[in-house]
């Protein structure tokens, strides 16, 4: 079946819905999503959205800009960061106007809490910048923006999985091919402008906070159509995932005063980040946890530590640090505060760890969380195809699938929610503007044949391999070799290993030969996407001979601004090889300097 829209948006998380909301004001727009929109992973964001409202203490967008650039280990493009942090405040007000139920201060304004890496630039102490709705801020953002889409009659194609990106011979993007999950039929969506907001690909790793759906379909489809991926070596491991399960426990726990404790009962973050301690940026905290474990100071010598938010513990450290509220009174945490401000994480701990965080510490380990890299875009959210930032006509991307780059080598907590809204809005507006002046891009005859052939190959595949086993092996391999600490040898093994797994996938048959709701077929297809992205990640990581942000090379432990202050671009070549190119970082007011927290 063929559909024609001025603008199509792929993905219905925060970025996709925001893009759709804005595009639909000026263009015939449709959203295609493999999930019902309210199932999108934006809904699992917990602690808050960063914006320098200054509602609770002095704060300025300039401080937010500097913190983001420092957090990025100076790899972020400073012009884009300026847009992100300046527009963050109006974006948060817009969410409030849409009805988002933010928590409130005593005088009725939006409440804010401290978060990792967000500081008062003068005192260097943590600043209250994360605007929150309990610990379900992402849930409220997703719901609120979806509600606005309903109000504005946005057209949705729910449970359609995009399996190919269409490009004309001239290189313009002409839309997508999507599989209607219920019927199993392929649909062509022909569009003047296409927006990708397809999210991340954290399912590459064994321990992950990411949903099953986060298989990088959009990123892989883009890569397979000859476009580069940017900064794929930079992948964030969030410090506090629930042991074994990887379920996220928000940084807001530490924002409320929680501390990390090792097997000897010591609060260890002051050793690694003397000023902000447990609220250092995520790369720093994840490495510190691994160092403790490596030196035998995990809990019972094992591979995890505790996150402790028991009021007694927290208040002891508040007293020790003479922590103050904005009004100057001594800062204290009560059991009731935890019930009120962190209800969901309390629920997760009770359900999955059988632990009540008011009475017991929580067993945590770093968990694969967020792709700083992705589809390269400029700050108008338009996809670019090379180191000269040549735009791809008719193609936009926003959110985790995109790399603007506002997060550089390490994203600060709360900034992903800012990113999806600010750049989602820009993608939607710009796509609609572009569509208003553009003709229909050429659509090849039988444009969906390549996608059909690919899926048919999976359907008719024979052999003795198993999709589930290959998936498990990939996740273990990537966790062991392309995680928080990396070396040449580990990365070389990962590349060889992933390439073997890709070959084996060609010999992994599926049992379900049906048309309707064939999720086995889709899972096999998604694993192919993940393997492509795992390979690019490992190749880009092997090539980068320095340590920066989330990319830490034990054989190159220092940041090297002379040779490596640049973004990587990875292209898939026709012969199965990956070609790497690099482009300069856009600097600005802030010269790179040593990063101390």
């Amino acid at each position, binding site marked *: 079946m063929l559909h024609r829209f001025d603008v199509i948006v792929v993905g219905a998380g925060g970025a996709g819905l925001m893009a759709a909301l804005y595009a639909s004001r000026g263009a015939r727009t449709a959203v295609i999503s493999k999930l*019902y929109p309210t199932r*999108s992973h934006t809904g*699992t964001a917990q602690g808050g959205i960063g914006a320098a409202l200054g509602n609770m203490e002095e704060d300025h967008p300039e401080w937010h800009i500097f913190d983001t650039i420092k957090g990025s280990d100076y790899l972020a493009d400073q012009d884009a960061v300026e847009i992100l942090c300046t527009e963050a405040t109006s974006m948060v*007000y817009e969410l409030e106007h849409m009805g988002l139920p*933010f928590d*409130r201060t005593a005088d009725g304004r939006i409440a804010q809490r401290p978060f990792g890496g967000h500081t008062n630039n003068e005192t260097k102490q943590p600043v209250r910048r994360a605007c929150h709705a309990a610990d379900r801020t992402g849930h409220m953002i997703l719901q609120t923006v979806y509600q606005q889409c*309903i109000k504005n009659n946005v057209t949705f194609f729910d449970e359609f999985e995009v399996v190919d990106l269409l490009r004309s011979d001239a290189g313009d993007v002409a839309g997508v091919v999507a599989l209607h999950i219920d019927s199993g039929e392929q649909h062509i969506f022909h569009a003047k402008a296409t927006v990708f907001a397809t999210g991340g690909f954290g399912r590459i790793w064994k321990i992950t906070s990411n949903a099953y759906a986060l298989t990088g379909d959009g990123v892989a489809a883009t890569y397979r159509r000859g476009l580069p991926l940017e900064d794929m070596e930079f992948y964030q491991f969030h410090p506090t995932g629930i042991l074994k399960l990887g379920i996220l426990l928000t940084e807001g726990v530490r924002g409320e005063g929680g501390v990390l404790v090792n097997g000897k009962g010591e609060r260890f973050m002051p050793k690694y980040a003397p000023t902000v301690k447990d609220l250092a940026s995520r790369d720093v905290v994840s490495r510190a946890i691994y160092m403790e474990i490596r030196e035998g100071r995990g809990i019972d010598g094992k591979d995890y530590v505790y996150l402790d938010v028991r009021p007694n513990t927290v208040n002891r450290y508040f007293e020790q640090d003479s922590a103050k509220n904005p009004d100057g009174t001594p800062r204290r945490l009560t059991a009731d505060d935890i019930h009120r401000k962190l209800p969901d994480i309390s629920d997760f701990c009770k*359900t999955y760890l059988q632990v009540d965080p008011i009475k017991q510490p929580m067993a945590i380990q770093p968990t694969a969380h967020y792709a700083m890299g992705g589809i390269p875009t400029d700050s108008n959210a338009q996809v670019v195809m090379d180191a000269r930032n040549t735009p791809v006509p008719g193609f936009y991307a926003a959110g985790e699938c995109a790399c603007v780059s506002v997060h550089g080598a390490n994203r600060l907590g709360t900034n992903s929610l800012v990113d999806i809204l600010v750049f989602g809005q820009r993608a939607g507006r710009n796509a609609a503007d572009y569509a208003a002046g553009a003709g229909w891009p050429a659509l090849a005859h039988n444009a969906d044949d390549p996608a059909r052939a690919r899926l048919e190959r999976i359907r008719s595949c024979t052999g003795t391999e198993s999709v589930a086993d290959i998936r498990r092996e990939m996740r273990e391999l990537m966790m062991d070799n392309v995680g928080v600490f990396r070396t040449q040898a580990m990365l070389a093994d990962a590349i060889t290993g992933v390439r073997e797994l890709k070959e084996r996938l060609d010999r992994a048959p599926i049992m379900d030969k049906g048309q309707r709701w*064939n999720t086995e077929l889709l899972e096999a297809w998604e694993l192919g996407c993940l393997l492509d992205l795992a390979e690019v990640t490992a190749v880009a990581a092997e090539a980068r001979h320095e340590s920066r942000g989330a990319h830490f090379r034990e054989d190159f432990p220092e940041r090297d601004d002379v040779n490596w202050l640049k973004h990587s671009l990875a292209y898939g070549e026709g012969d199965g090889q990956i070609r790497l190119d690099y482009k300069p970082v856009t600097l600005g007011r802030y010269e790179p300097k040593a990063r101390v927290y």
Partner: protein
Amino acid sequence: MKVRVKIRRFNPEKDRRPHWADYSVDAEKTDRILDLLVEIKGHQDGSLTFRRSCAHGICGSDALVINGRNRLACKVLVMDVGRNIVVEPLRGLPVIKDLAVDMEPFFAQYRSIKPFLINDDPPPYTERLQSREARARYDETTKCILCAACTTACPSFWASDSYVGPAAIVQAHRFIFDDRDQGAQVRLAILSGGNGVFRCRTIYNCVEACPRDIDITRAIGEVKKALLVGE
């Protein structure tokens, strides 16, 4: 340990009616029921069909009937239900394939109550002010993840699928009791109709089913009261 998982299955391309299938799975007591379904799909029968995404109780994809009760498969552990596990699709919505039901009627009911803030006043430059008390008034109903566990546990919904159902009323409550919203009368008018709140017979199944611990019957009661005596 070995657990026995009995699943109600239906393949629309092969079966005329649903049937039961039995699986034996190695499990830890802390495994989620979702983990067992994933294990069966990965290693025993790839055609087993179910929805899942976040796997920790937030996205609302995997509401199922587990040992007779509506719950999220990712929020129930083996130790919560024991070694004999029975999994069925939600009741009251058409089954598409195995555990996947047609969610469209559910979302149509949701949309019918105008689930968006209605306020045409020009907004201020910054945020509208809202007191903590006013914010707390509707806090509980903002937790809803639209998983449909409540609506599909409701005998009134089973009896008539034109009833808007508890989830839609929870969503209406979230706006009716938000002092920034001006659409209460419109929503109350919708909910006062034959398919509205008075179909609720306070059976409390919804409260028991809700994975977010929302006191749904109370929320419905508050909407009824608003209709009868005003907010």
